């Protein structure tokens, strides 16, 4: 992948999209951006130091080797606390790149710009697209014209208009300029924040591409951020998750990863392994010294403790791969309750409206459902039969399918409980309900065959807070209502609690498992004492290497440094 050219993409999230962000990064970012932007000098003075919204230009500053001015600049107004999210919901915050406010070190705004929400960028966004800029009050006789971004200082935000030449279009926008290296990618970056005018944005991108930029590959801005050393690997992965974050809960989980929760935890465990390794090595490399060597039982105990901590981390961690930034929606119910029909019906309806947007970062296409600006990953599992697998199932196929269903339910953000109106009893079994630990929406199917009037009352009587929607996959009755109910369940915040614990990608999990495996071999070896020291060391090094891979860096293996700081060496 080329890192030297200038790339452009619409980097706002898909969905409701009240606003859109168009980002340009690379050596010619300024020059190509000038082609489409006209500065509005009338309101410039008014806006220059106030026009940054919380959504501002969306990059983050952390892990910096140089001091970034905004890291330490106290915000002019109370800054959101750790893990707090922008008020406007996930779509506002999840522009490609990193959302602002994911970490307590990141203030929402540029220093000196103030934190006041921008009246320009938000409230005053004109209601319509105008063919003639002069026809609106805002731009009547503007003393505007060709703009020279290269004259602007860095961290400049100025209002103006996006006017792709020859398009006859003109739309108000705010341009943000961040010069290298103080930008997300550490290249020159220009962002345009505009109302999401679907018709306009491709024209703007087309013009910028015509000027010499290249449409960005999915994730390419973040790739550049990582390559330039701004993000470590775990953080870059977190950004990718944030981009696809479909709910506040997901966003919070990903921001946890981005904030370095996993890296910190892994770092703490790696430090303990390194300390144990130092004890082992001191027994090997300094055995001719008058040093008290740790007893084998203690080494073994400490190794086992780290292994247990790693296992706990793996268990408590939420698999990022299980939702990949999307709401994992599991359909549950008795066999033949109509889950698959409902599944297909939901997807059918969805496919008609899916339109991939350039620059968003869906790295893979899934059987996903888009509704209300959210993305759901639908997972249809085998039905849960209260009888379980009978003795007449020698291959245990039913039991295996059931085990998979149980696992899927455990990993669900949201469960769609499917009840067949035509096949009483309508109440779900206690066993099935016990497996559902996530928030729930109830769909009564086959409404064309039978009424299902008692279901809502039944759930209410059981104290289950679940919306019940009556549907028919055949007639299409209730499908739209069901989509709305799913969105409400997520946006109502019910899904939030799922985001507890650090977040793991499949890669992280594999690395954790490799580390834990090495420690599992090391602990009994350590008990053997002297004769196996070099083997214990080999296993401990392997676990350190595996953990180092999580943050994309080799773990600190300065074992000698640890030894010299702890032991009196030297005959």
């Amino acid at each position, binding site marked *: *992948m*080329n*890192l*030297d050219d200038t790339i452009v993409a619409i980097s706002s999230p898909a969905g409701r999209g009240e606003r859109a962000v168009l980002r340009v990064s690379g050596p010619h970012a300024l020059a190509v951006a000038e082609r489409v932007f006209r500065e509005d000098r009338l309101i410039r003075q008014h806006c220059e130091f106030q026009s940054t919204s919380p959504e501002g230009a969306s990059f983050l500053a952390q892990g910096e*080797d140089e001091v970034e001015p905004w890291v330490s600049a106290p915000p002019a107004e109370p800054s959101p606390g750790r893990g707090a999210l922008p008020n406007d919901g996930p779509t506002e915050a999840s522009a490609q790149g990193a959302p602002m406010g994911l970490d307590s070190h990141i203030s929402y705004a540029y220093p000196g710009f103030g934190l006041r929400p921008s009246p320009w960028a938000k409230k005053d966004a004109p209601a319509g697209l105008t063919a003639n800029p002069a026809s609106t009050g805002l731009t009547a006789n503007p003393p505007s014209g060709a703009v020279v971004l290269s004259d602007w200082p860095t961290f400049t935000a100025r209002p103006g208009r996006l006017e792709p030449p020859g398009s006859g279009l003109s739309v108000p926008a705010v341009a943000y300029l961040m010069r290298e290296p103080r930008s997300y990618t*550490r290249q020159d970056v220009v962002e345009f924040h505009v109302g999401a005018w679907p018709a306009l944005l491709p024209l703007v991108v087309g013009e910028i591409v015509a000027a010499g930029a290249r449409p960005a590959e999915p994730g390419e801005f973040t790739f550049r951020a*990582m*390559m*330039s*050393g701004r993000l470590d*690997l775990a953080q870059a992965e977190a950004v990718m998750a944030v981009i696809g974050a479909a709910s506040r809960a997901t966003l919070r989980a990903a921001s946890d990863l981005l904030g370095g929760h996993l890296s910190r935890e892994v770092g703490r465990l790696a430090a303990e392994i390194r300390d144990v390794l130092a004890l082992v*090595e001191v*027994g*090997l*490399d*300094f*055995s*001719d*010294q*008058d040093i008290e060597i740790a007893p084998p039982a203690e080494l073994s105990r400490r190794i086992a403790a780290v292994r247990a901590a790693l296992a706990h981390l793996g268990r408590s961690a939420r698999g990022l791969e299980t939702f990949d930034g999307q709401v994992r929606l599991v359909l549950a119910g008795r066999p033949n309750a109509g889950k698959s029909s409902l599944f297909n019906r939901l997807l059918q309806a969805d496919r008609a409206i899916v339109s991939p947007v350039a620059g968003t970062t869906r790295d893979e296409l899934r059987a996903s459902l888009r509704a209300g600006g959210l993305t759901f990953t639908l997972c249809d599992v085998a039905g849960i039969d209260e009888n379980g697998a009978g003795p007449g199932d020698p291959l245990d196929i039913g039991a295996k399918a059931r085990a998979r269903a149980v696992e899927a339910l455990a990993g669900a953000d949201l469960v769609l409980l499917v009840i067949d109106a035509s096949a009483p009893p309508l109440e779900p079994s206690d066993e099935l309900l016990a497996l559902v630990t996530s928030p729930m929406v109830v769909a009564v199917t086959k409404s064309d065959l039978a009424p299902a009037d008692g279901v809502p009352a039944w759930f209410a009587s059981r104290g289950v807070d679940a919306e019940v929607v009556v549907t028919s996959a055949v007639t299409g009755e209730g499908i739209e209502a069901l989509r709305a109910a799913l969105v409400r369940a997520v946006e109502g915040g019910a899904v939030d609690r799922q985001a507890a614990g650090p977040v793991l990608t499949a890669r992280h999990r594999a690395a954790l498992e490799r580390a834990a495996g090495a420690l599992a071999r090391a602990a009994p070896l350590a008990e*053997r004492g*002297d*004769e*196996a*020291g*070099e*083997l214990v*060391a*080999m296993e401990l*090094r392997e676990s350190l290497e595996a953990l180092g891979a999580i943050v*994309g*860096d*080799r773990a600190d293996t300065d*074992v*000698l440094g640890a030894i*010299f700081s702890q032991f*009196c*060496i*030297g*005959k």
Partner: protein
Amino acid sequence: MNEDAFDIVVVGGGHAGCEAALAAARLVGSSTRLGARVALVTIRADTIAQMSCNPAIGGLAKGQMVREIDALGGQMARTTDATALQYRLLNRSKGPAVRSPRAQCDRHAYARAMQETLRGQTGLEIIEDVACDIETAGDRVAAVRCESGRRLATRAAIVTTGTFLRGVLHVGTKMWPGGRIGEPAAENLSAGLARLGLVLGRLKTGTPPRVDGRTLDYAHMQEQPPDPDPVRFSFGWPDGPFPNVSCWITETTPEVHELIRANLDRAPLYTGQIRSTGPRYCPSLETKIVRFADRRRHQVFLEPEGRDTPVVYCNGLSTSLPEDVQDRVVHGIPGMERAAILRYGYAIEYDFVPPTQIQPTLETKAVRGLYLAGQINGTSGYEEAAGQGLLAGINAARALQGRPPIVLGRDQAYLGVLVDDLVTKGTEEPYRMFTSLAEYRLVLRHDNADRRLTPVGREVGLVADEAWRRLEAKEREIAETRALLRRVRVEGRTLEDLLRRPDVTWESLAADVPDLAALVISPEAREQVVIEAKYAGYLVRQSAQIERARKMEDRLIPPELDYAAVTHLRTEAREKLARVRPRSMGQAARIAGIGPSDLAVLMIHLKR
């Protein structure tokens, strides 16, 4: 008649210089041209191969290197075996990878034996003089200039100056120039090296007092006897007289510590008189007492320096305290109350060339044909020095012959780890080898050094037919025995499987299996078979690690790469890469402060 012409001039007659001179002479001396083609310039010919510090060779990780030197065709192991006073295999109770042979040597006998070897080497001339400058023609070495005015024209120079480059000795508040006690320093060569563009740094080391063994009271000390079954260094060197000299252990006392604390205002390490960095693993007594104040005792090992001398080396008492304090310290130690001090401990500061300035061939990046080896590269230890000297001698000779250099891998030898660490990471303190520095420790054992490196030494031309035949015979024995172990079964399981059980030994197996009992096999070959059977699983994993790493080692970086043209490299990464100029992505990854994203940027650049 001040003009002589050589192929290779070695500057310095320490352990690096000796190996360099011998290897060079053995490799280039085979030509038909008459007269010496290799010269060794040294300040005093009678102190060649002097053990300036303790009278011992080998030790943890170092013993492995000495055996590697032997396998490659170097000299140190043979001379040690000929002059040893005692052998001990360290870490005997531990796994085979960390077992290390160590020998106490007769200090004078060792130097004498090495000097005889040098004098007997055809094609090698020993010149007593002080090198003061390196002359170049273009970017190549042209001559070594000496203080006498002599000019030694040469095609290559190997500089092995040890502690002699602008050396300054410290005892208490006294300081004076010198290369080591009783010998002058090389005062002018530093400036010559600097003129060639080399940056110099400064390091410190130290040595303890020596006492008269006849004045020690061994009744109050613990004896440290030699191993009854010595493991020698040289593969196949005939056994010398049974080395049966003991060392003795005593320890310091709280009163001695108090005495030292009371005199820190006269300790050059604490008054600011010494500024440069000393070895962390070999601190002075005063450093130990300051840094680990809660320790009430420190061990002192009393090591005899020879059979015919009363001199005893006080290992553990390295110090540069004033003489009167040294007197009281020594006399405060149990068993040493009446000890006669023959020589006081001292510290020495000297110039070194931070080793990122040399290539893995040990040739400097700045000047073609100029090689550096030993303490000038920031190392400490006789073994580290000898290993570098050997490699520098080999590579200087090969370069003249137009043959490719020998660069040992980290998976191949401790000497490979040593050189790679030096040229990749540099060092800010005297560098010493540890087994923990070798990521492939399980395969870098002392017992298989011959199997790892004799083929290399043979290819180079330093391994004689006899040693080569010995290795071939050993390999044959190993292969045949392994085949037997895989063929013969007891209760359905192969002998190899049985041997893998922790509780099964060769002997216990042989007691039950007549085939095995009847087998005639050398102990060395048998040891290889047993280790490889018992550690098979780990060795396979280590081999897999090596294979994985080799992919990175095989991704070569063009030596002339312009790092300024690699856009997107962080400034720090760019500077480090440009300074080290790694040969491969693997080496680049080992540079401190180079992260995965730097490597990715580099990789993307190279792919274009």
